[in-house]
Structures are given as C-alpha cells and as structure tokens.
C-alpha cells in the first residue's frame, strides 16, 4: 500500500541539480565528494546531497509557504556552496546541460542505487548527465495530488520554456532551447503519469507495475510530474536548472500560484483529452522555448507559449496577491513579455565569444549572483 502522507496545501520545496566545473578549462570535473565533505563540517541551510556523478551535486530547500523565504534560503544555500567551491578551486553553475562535456568521461558516484541505475541503463546513465530543477507542491491528500498533477499537465510547456537553459550539448548547438529533456525521453518510464484521479486507483496501478517487476519504488518513474507520497507533494520535474536561484524561486512560486488557482477555480474539466496535445506542446516548448506554439486543448486554438503564459498570469494575479508572491509574478511577466530565457542569454553570449568554455565561465559568474 502506497500511503500518501498529507501535507499543508500549497507549501513549496525546491531541489536543484548543480554542475561542478573546473576553473581552468571549464569542463565538468570531479568534486562532489570533496565539496560535500567540506560543507558538512558546519551547519548550513538546506540539504546538500551527492547525485549520480562526481560532477553533480543536489541542493534542496526546506518547506516554504511563500516565495520570499524560499528565495532567501536558496541564496543562503548558494552562498555556502560557492564559498566551499572557491576553497576547492571549483566552479558551480546552473544550466540544464554542460555545453561541451563528453558523456564517456563521466564517472558514476559510488552508492548501491547509482551503481544499480548505471548497470541497468548503461550509457544512458552517463548521458543522463543533465541538470534539472524539481519543484514540490504540498497537497492535502492523494486524490487532491492527482487532480493537481493532471491539471498542471496543461502548463508543462510553460515550465519548460521559462526554465530552458540547455541549448548546447556535447559541444554543439542542439537547436533546442531545452535539449536536456531529450535525454530524459530515452528512459522507458519517462513521459506522463497515467490518467487516474483517485489515489486508490493509482495505488492499484502502482502495485500492478510492481507486480510485473517493472518498478520497485516511485523513484523508478521518470514522469514529467509525479506524486511523491512520502512527502505529500507533487513534483514537477521538467525544468532545467536555471542559471540563477532567483529564477528557480520564481518558477516555484509560479507553480504555487497555478496550484492555488487550479484548486480554487477549477478553470477546465479534467479529461484524458488534455493529453492529446501534450507531446506536441511539450516538443514545441523544448525546441522553440517561449517562441514555441501550444494548442489549448479546451479552445483548440494555437498561440505562442509566451502569450499563453501572459494570459495565464492575468488569471493568476489575485492568487499572487494571496500568496504574497507579487514579486515572482512580476518577474515571470517580464520574462514572458520580453522572451527572456536563459537559453536565449546563452545563445547571445556565444554569438559574442564563440567559445563554449567562456560560456561556462559566465554561467559560473552568473550563478554567484555577484
């Protein structure tokens, strides 16, 4: 029995997978265990954990009710991480991919689970050296979580386009704004959760999948949004790690506003038809970012993602006020109306310098927030 542990609705938590790079050639380097050993010496905000390779580290925040405290904690965690990295001559940066690392150079972090994943997926596990942001939103019960999950599916392109920060991969321009999600697609259990709206049914589904031996835990599903029953949250997993913690916090607040609006107003009926346009919209967001087109499953009209975001923001305005998230609302509004994404920033920078290492150097500088 998969028990959904209730949590306070609309509470927030963020996880960020960060890149660890060499400060001389700006390639990914080994440093996770040294960095962890160093930050573990004294108490620090948030949680800092190893990830699948030595070139990646995951930070996570505590539980927040509002955008303001979330951004404060993220900044504090960042400062701890940056200070430790400075002592070890490492660079820490955001971005969904490292622009020129070669996948065969990666080493897998030595824990039983990571060894298992590595053995099962072979080169996919190493190619999976991509860096994402996960946003947790608290839900009162399992049924509510599933409702929120499937309603949020409609807005997945927003999260992809607003966070997109992986235009370069393996040394080349991929032409995608978020190439990271293509690496996720390769996994057999990626995609979306089955359209089930009651926790009892979902539990039965999970038990059947476990019965087949396909999964052992919820962790084996690589869905775009998945329930996290032990936290009592739903987890949005499509975002690239943004280049700044401010964007990461604003994205989380955007999710929070959406959930409040969806729960309060139920603006559209939940049917499986919502998913007919899902893969098309998702591709548009990955490929073209804010300039991509999405089809609204309700009205069947097609419009640019940035316009869809602006229209949504209008509906969210009262909820931004209710959640004390007007600052985040303003930020998202500015990004959508200017078409300002991290992917575009990276591409413009490359036009100037024509150097991918230089790009990483600037990413590191940008993450410091200096």
């Amino acid at each position, binding site marked *: 029995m998969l028990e959904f542990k209730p949590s306070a609705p609309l509470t927030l938590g963020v996880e960020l997978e960060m890149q660890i790079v060499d400060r*001389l*050639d700006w390639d990914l380097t080994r440093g996770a265990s040294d960095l962890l050993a160093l930050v573990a010496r004294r108490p620090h905000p948030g949680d800092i954990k190893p990830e699948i390779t030595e070139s990646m580290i995951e930070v996570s925040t505590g539980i927040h009710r509002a955008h303001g405290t979330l951004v404060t904690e993220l900044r504090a965690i960042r400062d701890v991480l940056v200070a430790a990295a400075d002592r070890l001559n490492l660079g820490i940066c955001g971005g969904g991919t490292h622009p020129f690392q070669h996948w065969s150079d990666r080493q897998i972090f030595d824990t039983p689970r990571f060894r298992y994943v590595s053995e099962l997926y072979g080169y996919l596990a190493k190619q999976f050296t991509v860096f994402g942001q996960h946003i947790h939103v608290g839900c009162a019960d399992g049924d509510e979580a599933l409702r929120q999950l499937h309603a949020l599916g409609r807005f997945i392109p927003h999260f992809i386009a607003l966070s997109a920060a992986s235009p370069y991969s393996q040394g080349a321009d991929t032409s995608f704004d978020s190439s990271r999600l293509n690496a996720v697609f390769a996994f057999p259990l990626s995609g979306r959760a089955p359209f089930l709206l009651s926790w009892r049914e979902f539990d039965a589904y999970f038990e059947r999948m476990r019965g087949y031996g396909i999964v052992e835990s919820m962790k084996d599903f690589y869905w775009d949004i998945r329930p996290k029953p032990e936290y009592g949250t739903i987890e949005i997993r499509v975002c690239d790690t943004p280049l700044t913690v401010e964007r990461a916090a604003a994205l989380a607040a955007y999710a929070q506003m959406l959930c409040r609006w969806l729960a309060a107003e139920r603006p559209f009926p939940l049917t499986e038809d919502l998913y007919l346009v899902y893969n098309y919209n998702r591709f548009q967001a990955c490929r073209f970012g804010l300039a991509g087109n999405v089809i609204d499953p309700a009205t069947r009209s097609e419009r640019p993602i940035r316009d869809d975001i602006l229209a949504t923001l209008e509906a969210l305005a009262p909820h931004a006020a209710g959640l004390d998230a007007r600052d985040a609302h303003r930020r998202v509004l500015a990004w959508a109306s200017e078409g300002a994404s991290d992917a575009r920033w990276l591409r413009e920078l490359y036009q100037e310098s024509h150097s991918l290492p230089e790009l990483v150097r600037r990413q590191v500088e940008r993450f410091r927030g200096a």
Partner: protein
Amino acid sequence: MHELFFLPEWPPRPGGVAWIAVMLVLAVAAGEAASRWLRLPRIIGYVGAGVALGPQGVGFVDRAALGELRLFLDVALGIVLYELGSRVDLAWLRRNPWLAATSLAESAFAFGAVLALLLVLEVAAPVAAVVAAIAAGTSPAVVTTIARELRARGQVTDRLLLLTALDSVYVFLAVAMLYAWVGLEYRGDWMAMALHPAYLIAGSLALAAAGAALVAVARRMLPPRSDADVVIALAAIVLTVAFADALDLPVVLALLALGALARSFDRDRAVPPATFGPVEALAVVVLFAFTGAMLEFQVAPLAAVAGLGIVAARALGKAIGVFAFARPSGLALRKASLLAVALTPMSGLALVMAEQAAVAYPELAPGLALTLLAAIAILEIMGPLATRFALSRAGEARAQ
C-alpha cells in the same frame, strides 16, 4: 678495376643525431613494455632504457654526448614546465590562503627534515643546506606526465600540480641563493643578499611576461585554435630558455610563469590551455631517457643508506606540511595522505643542479655525490609509482 668513388667509408659513422633516434626508439619500446607487461608507468620504462644505454649500462651514451644535448633537454623540460604553469591557478591561493600555507610548510619541513638528518650524519653545513634545498622540490615532469597518463582530475591532482609548481620555484630560488652564499659572493653584503632574490624573481617574471605577450600578440593574428599555436608557444619557450640562460635567471621560474601568463593573457578567448600533443610526448621521452642515462648507481653502500635516509626524511617533512593545513584548506585527511604520497617524485632537475654545483664548487662535489645521487636514483623509480598509486586511490584517474 673501376674506382667506385661514390661508395662510402665502411663502416658508416652517422652523426650524433642517429644515436639519439636509436635511444628514443628503445626508450619508447621499453616504456610500452613496462606499461603492458609490468603494468608500470611508461616513464619508468624510459628511465630504464636510459640507464641501460648510459654510462652505467652498455655505455652507448656517454657524459660528453649528454653535454651536447643540453639545449635539447632544456627545451623538453621547458615544454613540461610551460604546461604545468598553464595548469596552475594562482588565484586559488587567494581564495584559499591555507593552500599557500600548505605549500610553504611542505617545502620548509622537507628542507628542515633533510637538513637535520644530514647535519646529524656530520655532513658539512653548506653541503647539507644545498642538498636539503634540492631535495625539497617535487618533479614537475613526473607529476604532469603521470597526471596526464591517468587523465586525472580532482582535488589531489589539482593540489599536487599547484604544490609542485610552487616548490620548484622555491627550490630554484633557495639553491641560487645558497650557491651565492657558499661561494662567499655576498661577502656579508646584506644589500646584495636582499637584491639577489629580487632580481631572480622580478627578472624571471619580466622575461615570462615578454614571452607571454609575444604569444598573445601572435595568436591574435591567427584564427582560433590554429595549429600554429603550438609553434608559437614552442618559439616562446626556446626564447625564454635562451634569455634566462643569458641573463642568469632561473629557467624553471621563467617557464612556469610563461605558461601561467600566456594563459591569463589569453583570457578573452578562454581557450583551453595549449597542449603540445605529440611534441610533448617526445619531450617526455627525451627527458626521462636522458635522466636515466645520467643516474648514478655505483655509490658506496654508506651513500645508499644516506640516500634512503634523505628519501624518508623528505617524505616525512612533506607529509607533516600537508597534514598540518589539510583541514583548514578543506581537504579530508584520507586525501591529504594521498597528496603527501603523490609528492614523492623528486626532481630530475636535482641532477642538473648537483652537476652544476659540482662544477662550480668542486669542494662540494664529493659530499653531494655521496648522498644526493643515491636519493635521486631511488626516487626516480619509486616516485612515478607513488604518484600513480595516490591519484588512482583518490579515485581521480579516468584512464588506467
């Protein structure tokens, strides 16, 4: 009977270049054999070939021939130092001052430990000081070659390269000053004593800056990542070696600074540090094969014991220095111990310095030969193994 005037004299006597080629081929073969069948670092094979062909072995290469090759060797060493310089980030010392403390401590303690041992063994103080100073250094060639062979990356590797570059600089400054002191050239003139290191440091840096500026200007005229980058860097190395020699400046400091400055002048293009590729492979073979040929194994048993003593004292000093500041500098103790092990290789440069000393100050020669050469011979074999062991154990090797 025709006069076959075109036939050469028999047997033919090829010029000096031919035996260099033979030596290189044999060294490469020995390196591959060492790597494939004995699973040893290749450079041990190169050194072995040098020993076998040198005066200690079949005598194929003699001292005179080694003397002729001085410039060739200097350029090979220059390439290694330039690359080490370009991989060292001095800004790290600013971000983590405890690393500077580690660097000073590991050199000073190694110097102190060896000096104390030699004084106990009743070696004359000036000789003891010179030997201890030479022994305090770590081999740039061994360390960079092993790190590259393993494609190593991580804290132990990065710190090893930084500490090696810095202790090489200290050693050259210390030795230059000690020679002047032993030669009584200061004559109690405190001004001269203060200005001497100032000249050595400022002169080397100025020379390096000129060379690096040359590289930067030339590169700006070339398309990015041009093949000519290597040619220009080599030209700058040769010029730096030549002028350092002519100006009595420490070549090691000048070349390390050249590598570091060439890199930082290139900031706006932010290309990865120049790698010499096959040229560097050649430089490494040359360096180690000739080091092997210069090694001295026929030392008295007493000297061998003293040599072992130096090895042990040096290792102890370095370990204390590294451990003393491991924690504040942010290194776990396990990695600190691996770093101390990785610092084992003693510089083949010590050989050159010992020979120079023997020539310049004949009164030092017997003492030097007695103790230092044995230590060098021991460490030339043990050093590469220790470094490889340490970097692999630290989990920083990507290639085996």
